[in-house]
């Protein structure tokens, strides 16, 4: 009998977390190489809709683990429900997205089954019939291939962005859904409603997305356009020194040798030429996108994605496209 991969998709407040599609994409890739079967599980209360959504993808089966005790997330509740289920189903591999929620219960779940999690993986390798999971170590300075030594069920979680969620394969027909009345042991923690806090003082070093403007922005009033782009992306606005010197943006938003050193996931440089004093403050960014009129601008040397052109032409449609993409999400 073929082994099974079980994906535990994530739902929060009754909504599927889109990052779950990435996990399914990853599982589908592994399954394609190993020939294993893919099944998915949703945990919660009143989750039939989510189960149906997942069942549309190319998976063999979807389980809906339901209990009123699972209405709000608790590590005790989720771990005990899944423990019973997994102990009974015995999948070879359990995959989840590496979210804050998963970090909170997955190690406990694995340990309760005498097993282990390889967390925060960015990929996998299937070599000589062995599965290896690739993850970053030493804060990204190294990558490591990690194997399981025990019998399983094995647990692995995938980092946000490890696979492309939009490449998840749809099923030819909807997969069967099985409702499972989850057994939930004592829940010792009492969670309150999640809430959002008022935005605090800007800390660019913590920002995941930064839209940064340079001299190419030309006039103070144009800063607003860049801000709109930052807002659409859910990022922070920053600038090179001349902009802050002119008082168009406060000094605390300056990136570079005399300002902040940042390393966001995305650094979008608008009209920044890339003088070395600016580069030293942002070259550690995971991805650098540069839009500049001057094809010879040094910023292009370190950019991952380059657009040679007038930022005033490109930014407005870009804002629209970003908004569209977000709405589609």
């Amino acid at each position: 009998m073929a082994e099974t991969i079980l994906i535990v998709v994530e739902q929060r407040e009754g909504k599927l977390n889109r990052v779950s599609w990435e996990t399914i994409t990853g599982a589908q890739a592994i399954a394609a190489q190993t020939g294993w079967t893919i099944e998915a599980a949703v945990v919660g209360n009143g989750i039939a809709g989510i189960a149906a959504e997942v069942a549309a993808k190319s998976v063999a089966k979807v389980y809906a683990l339901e209990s009123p005790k699972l209405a709000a997330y608790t590590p005790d509740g989720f771990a005990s429900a899944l423990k019973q289920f997994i102990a009974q189903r015995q999948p070879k591999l359990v995959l989840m997205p590496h979210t804050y929620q998963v970090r909170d219960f997955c190690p406990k779940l694995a340990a309760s089954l005498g097993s282990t999690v390889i967390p925060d993986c960015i990929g996998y390798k299937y070599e000589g019939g062995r599965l290896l999971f690739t993850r970053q170590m030493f804060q990204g300075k190294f990558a490591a291939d990690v194997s399981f030594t025990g019998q399983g069920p094995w647990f692995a979680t995938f980092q946000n962005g490890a696979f492309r969620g939009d490449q998840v394969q749809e099923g030819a027909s909807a997969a069967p859904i099985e409702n499972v009345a989850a057994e939930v042991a004592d829940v010792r923690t009492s969670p309150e409603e999640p809430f959002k806090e008022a935005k605090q003082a800007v800390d660019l070093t913590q920002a995941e997305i930064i839209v940064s403007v340079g001299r190419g922005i030309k006039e103070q009033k144009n800063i607003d356009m860049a801000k709109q782009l930052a807002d659409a992306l859910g990022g922070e606005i920053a600038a090179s020194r001349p902009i802050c010197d002119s008082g168009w943006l406060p000094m605390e938003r300056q990136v570079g040798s005399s300002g902040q050193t940042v390393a966001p996931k995305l650094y979008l440089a608008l009209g920044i030429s890339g003088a070395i004093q600016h580069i030293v403050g942002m070259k550690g960014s995971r991805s650098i996108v540069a839009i500049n009129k001057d094809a010879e601008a040094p910023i292009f040397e370190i950019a991952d994605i380059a657009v040679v052109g007038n930022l005033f032409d490109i930014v407005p449609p870009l804002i629209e496209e970003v908004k569209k993409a977000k709405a589609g999400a």
Partner: protein
Amino acid sequence: MLRPNGPVARCWVKILVCMKQVPQKDAPLKLNEGGTWIREDVSYEVNEPDAYALEEALRQKEKHGGEVVVITAGPARAQQVLREALAKGADRAIHLEDDRFVGLDAFNVARAFAAAIKEDAFDLIFTGLQSDDYGYAQTGVLLAELMGWPHATIIMQIEKKDSGIRVKRELEAGFFQFVEMPLPAVLTIQSGINKLRYATLIGIKQAKNKPMRKVSWDDVSGAVGENLQKVEKLYVPQKTKKTEYLEGSPAEVAKKLVDKLRNEVRVL
């Protein structure tokens, strides 16, 4: 423990802080010959998230009274982490001292810790959010499971309640959540929850005289099992920095760029 100079009130909390020694942030790391781990001849320091956990424990103690105990596992060099914690105000330290502790997976480290503190009755165990070397973020949660205690991760605030504690968890996308739980419990502390203190000269002078309990490999090896996972290979990730130029009309460029932001940069 009798503390003649301590607060009059009953010791509220006895907190254990799990700490780890990791390579210094700016230390240039090199792979060992087999490519299975780094070369150990680097400078080490306290795992920064653990420093926040210690700071939070010290603040709780200052507020409510009690005791702060620090624990680490590793070779002799790891003692530096404990000395530093003692200098900052921890009351005593436990050192699981052996080279072999370095190679343990998170589950086994948690098992070794649990075995080492069998005789102690802690109300709370704190760990940092994760370590700067492995970055597994598991030891705290695993320890809770082993101890049979409730836990909560990524904690931003801790309040004492009659029935236990109420903590603020950080969720994703700017959300937070309060959670209540009874004691004893395990918390993993978010970095930035507080402002770290410096070790004072007096603290450094006094640290020498604070108790440091050594636990040998043999003392806890009975509780430790086979590692359930193994680092097969450590390597420098391939850099694929090639500048890709997007061309076309502004509208086309905008579309292409958003596509890349979603599928390659993955920020949408």
